[in-house]
């Protein structure tokens, strides 16, 4: 069994999770504030990848990144970057695809904090940023960890988008989920079983860890 697809999947999930932590903290904070029509629309858009078939995302990405036109052409000409059939392309797709898994739980957790927390901090003359960093963030640590693990596991499970824009290049875009598909197509069921078991094991352990960690909390991770 070739370990490269497994490593690639883990690498993709790790990078995606780190990027989404950076993106979603300010985003979730902004979303958790007073509800406006605009915020609601943004939230709808962020939640879309949860319900949209991956093939739709794959199709749009294929069109957007074609080096022949528009955005893809510009990236290609200006930076010599090609986002289809490349690892950075998979990272970008994963960030979009797993966005709701990070943004959703973090936003909910921020909204459930008592408003008096932030208000007390402002009264003591702390800035918005200081308040967020020292008061709000420590209070949502469990939610943050849960969101990060779910994002990681969800990215491991990505398949449809990768199949459409990845090109199945060994060591570059052949992630574990595609390796399973490939092995089944080649009727190499033993190889497929090995990859599948490994993926099953990793995700099972991850989720079990989250549930155990959250047992001390009032909520389960899926709430």
């Amino acid at each position, binding site marked *: 069994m070739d370990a490269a697809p497994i490593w690639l999947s883990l690498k993709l999930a790790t990078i995606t999770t780190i990027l989404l932590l950076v993106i979603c903290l300010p985003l979730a904070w902004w979303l958790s504030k007073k509800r406006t029509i605009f915020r609601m629309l943004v939230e709808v858009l962020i939640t879309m990848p949860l319900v949209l078939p991956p093939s739709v995302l794959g199709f749009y990405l*294929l*069109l957007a*990144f*074609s*080096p*022949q*036109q528009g955005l*893809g052409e510009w990236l290609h000409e200006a930076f010599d970057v*090609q986002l*289809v*059939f490349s690892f950075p392309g998979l990272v970008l797709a994963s960030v979009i695809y797993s966005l709701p898994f990070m943004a959703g739980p973090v936003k909910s957790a921020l909204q459930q904090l008592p408003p008096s927390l932030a208000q007390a901090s402002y009264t003591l003359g702390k800035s918005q940023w200081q308040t967020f960093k020292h008061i709000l963030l420590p209070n949502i640590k469990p939610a943050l960890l849960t969101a990060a693990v779910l994002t990681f596991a969800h990215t491991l499970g990505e398949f449809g988008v990768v*199949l459409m824009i990845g*090109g*199945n*290049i060994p060591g570059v875009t052949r992630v574990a989920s595609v390796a399973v*598909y*490939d092995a*089944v*197509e*080649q*009727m190499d069921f033993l190889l497929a079983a090995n990859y599948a078991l490994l993926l099953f094991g990793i995700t099972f352990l991850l989720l079990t860890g989250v549930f155990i960690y959250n047992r001390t909390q009032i909520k389960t991770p899926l709430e």
Partner: protein
Amino acid sequence: MLVALSLIAMAQDVKIAAAANLQSVIKPLAAEFKKQTGITVTAIHGASGKLTAQSMNGAPYDIFLSADVAFTQTLYNKGYSINKPMVYALGSLILCSQRPFDTKRWKKWLTDKSTQKIAIANPSTAPYGKAAIQVLKADALLTTLKPRLVYGESIAQVNTYITTGVVSVGFTTEALIRDPQLKTKLYWLKMDNNNYSPIKQAMVLLKAGKNKAGAQKFYEFLLSPAAKRIFKQYGYQVK
């Protein structure tokens, strides 16, 4: 009532598992067959390897039209097919791109820096992909070009990559060029068929099929002069 009707309709049609390269030629074949017999043909497309795996796992296909002989031979050897593999057409491999290229210097153009991504079908599941690898090997290009290769899961995905322009060039079937539905202007070159083993496309009747009589009729139709004419129009060779 509607359910009953659709059940009758379902029972009437012939389900064929067809290699992805047949996607365009199947339409006129099915239309001609319907004209002659009144029987509807429903095609399920995919890479030959995938369809073989599905046929071994209880997929209810009546006929399997492969892109090679090996996969049909596997089905026959393992007892999933009624008959031995029968060659119905020979496929031809082409080099195809949205960009114009000098057909006399295609090798130079392939190795040029401007040619960034080259699409081929997955060589382990798609015979056209295997043929593409053979061509690259024959011209001692494989080592140089390997880092630029991207693999479509079937020839259909390779065609998508070529026509959307996400790859510079791809190795595909001549049937793509012959498809009247093709809207994109493509430049292409037939590969020297001495450089790859002939793509003998064979078919078998499957035991798991639900419509044996209709399947038998379609099988015979594919070997008839009318079907051969259609295959020729789409760039296939027939005996």
